């Protein structure tokens, strides 16, 4: 099976380590998002894959062929830059045909292929328009078409949608995903927007401070985060400090929880999503119940958010409006943390700021 394999890719700038031994296997045809806060090394990693940065260590191969030392112009990967990098002296069509021109294609062939690609990105008839006369969304499409002109083995995008307004960005995310599915090209997108990553990716690679924290399908990253950083960075979560009290029982602020998958002893960190926290009638007995005081309620339209103070720790719960209990802030509430929704994480570790 053909694949892109990153084996301990490292990039150092003096004493600063931008990417720390990134290892990853990306099977053919996948849509991968490199996700992380700014400065986490995701763009540097993408640029190393493109051949624009020389790795300080590690190897890179595609289809079992080592390309670590292959210069960018011989890798035949298509790339869309954050600034789009459209050539200002060329028209939309000439921009798209540029790689064909470099390879010596006839001008008839160039025009034909540029037309085809404009068709593909749903911008037909724009071939003769100068780049400066195009809107932001249209430039985006021209940049995508240009990167796909040579039917690359790998399609790389560096924060491609960051310049667009929110509505257009959502539409382009869906369109990009559909385009990728139709072409079946292996795609790697760098983004700091977790919604964007969840929308498009088959595999989300969560990075922070130059390290890969987790590489998994979006729902797995959301449901089974590998550590506190991933749990907190992707969506909203409750993180509870706990200590194993007995086999299968963990002590948390305000009570104890019975959970599977607990280590035999020591400290742990529990992550539970707000939508998994259940509000129970006050004082109701049952497993995994914690009793606290309601500190804050707000309506979010589709749901209602409750903040519950349990022995000094805030637990956030999301409920449907019709499930809203008749409790005013300051009143006593009971929450249930279902064992199946609790993720046991190693204690400590870095968290997003």
């Amino acid at each position, binding site marked *: 099976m053909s694949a892109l394999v990153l084996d301990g890719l490292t990039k150092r700038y003096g004493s600063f380590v931008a990417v720390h031994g990134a290892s990853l296997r990306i099977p053919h045809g996948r849509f991968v998002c490199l996700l992380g806060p700014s400065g986490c090394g995701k763009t540097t990693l993408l640029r190393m894959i493109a051949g624009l940065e020389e790795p300080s260590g590690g190897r890179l191969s595609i289809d079992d062929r080592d390309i670590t030392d292959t210069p960018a112009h011989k890798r035949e990967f298509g790339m869309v*830059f954050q*600034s789009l990098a459209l050539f200002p002296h*060329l028209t939309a069509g000439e921009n798209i045909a540029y790689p064909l021109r470099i390879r010596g294609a006839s001008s008839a062939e160039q025009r034909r292929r540029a037309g085809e690609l404009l068709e593909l990105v749903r911008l037909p008839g724009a071939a003769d328009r100068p780049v400066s006369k195009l809107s932001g969304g249209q430039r985006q499409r021209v940049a995508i078409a*240009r990167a796909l002109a040579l039917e690359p083995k790998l399609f790389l995008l560096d924060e491609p949608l960051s310049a667009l307004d929110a509505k257009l960005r959502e539409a382009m995310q869906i369109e990009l995903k559909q385009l990728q599915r139709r072409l079946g090209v292996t795609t790697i997108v760098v983004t700091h927007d977790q919604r964007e990553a969840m929308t498009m990716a088959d595999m989300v690679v969560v990075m922070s401070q130059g390290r890969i924290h987790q590489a998994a399908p979006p729902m797995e990253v959301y449901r089974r985060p590998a550590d506190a950083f991933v749990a907190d960075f992707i969506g909203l979560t409750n993180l509870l400090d706990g200590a194993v009290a007995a086999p299968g029982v963990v002590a948390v602020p305000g009570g104890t929880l019975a959970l599977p998958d607990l280590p035999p002893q020591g400290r742990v960190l529990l992550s539970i999503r707000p939508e998994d926290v259940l509000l129970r009638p006050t004082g109701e007995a049952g497993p995994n119940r914690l009793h606290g005081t309601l500190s804050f309620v707000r309506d979010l339209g589709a749901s209602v958010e409750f903040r519950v103070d349990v022995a000094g720790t805030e637990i956030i719960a999301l409920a449907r409006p019709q499930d809203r209990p008749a409790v005013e802030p300051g009143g006593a509430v009971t929450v249930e943390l279902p064992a199946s929704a609790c993720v046991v994480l190693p204690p400590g570790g870095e968290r997003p700021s």
Partner: protein
Amino acid sequence: MIRRAPRSLAEHAPILFPALMLIVFFVIPFSLMIAVSVARRVPGGFYEPDFVFANYERFLTAFFGGVLAFSLELAGLVAVLAVGVAFPFTYRLARLPRAAQVRWLVFLLSILSLSEVIIGFAWSTLLSRTAGITNLFVALGLMAEAQSLTPSFGALLAGMVYQAFPYTVLVLYPALARLDPSLVEAARTLGSSPVRAFFTVVVPALRSTIVATLIMAFVFALGSYLLPQLLGRPQHWTLSVLITDQAIYQSNMPFAAAMAVFLVLVSLALVALALLAGRRKEEA
């Protein structure tokens, strides 16, 4: 911003100062020169006001035509060489770390403080037989014996390109420093080698800057009158040399003025032509 024609005198005021400067330092001197160019020369004396075209007629001979053509050719060649060397140089310079860039720019600025005379004598020493660079070639076994490389057309060209180079770099620098580095990276991911990317992306993307710099270097080289005398043979003397000769040594101010006016008109026409050609290509 609302744009409307200025109404009161006060609203015209901002333009008054530049207009005044333009009149005092350009319109008046140039008008005087035009007036002098149609004056009649008094042999053995100076000149008296008149309205004759004798000075222009004298100019329309094969000799002066040849000098004019040579001057334009030389200036054009200097401009092309200076930009040809300075453009790749500045491209690399703009990609160096900031501290290194500052050092280079200070160095180039310091070259600007050298006068034309010093540059001329430095080059004639460097290219001379007794103390010149050919002695180094002899020592290295590249040449049988030292020889003089000056005066010659090559020496003149070298001196003038050297003189124009720092100006050219300083004019090109802002545009090259602003150039989005991802343009070249994009070209590389699309299959261009770095050299190919330079010629297919950097040069065409900055075409209007290059044309403007060529014109600047051309006009700059056209005014040079010391270097042709220091580094060239008499057949390499430019129109500027002849103008100086007529004005100072022959005391023929009307003829010198006529040549100067003609030189200004010809170079203006060439610049307009270059701009027109550039615009037409942009529209195509």
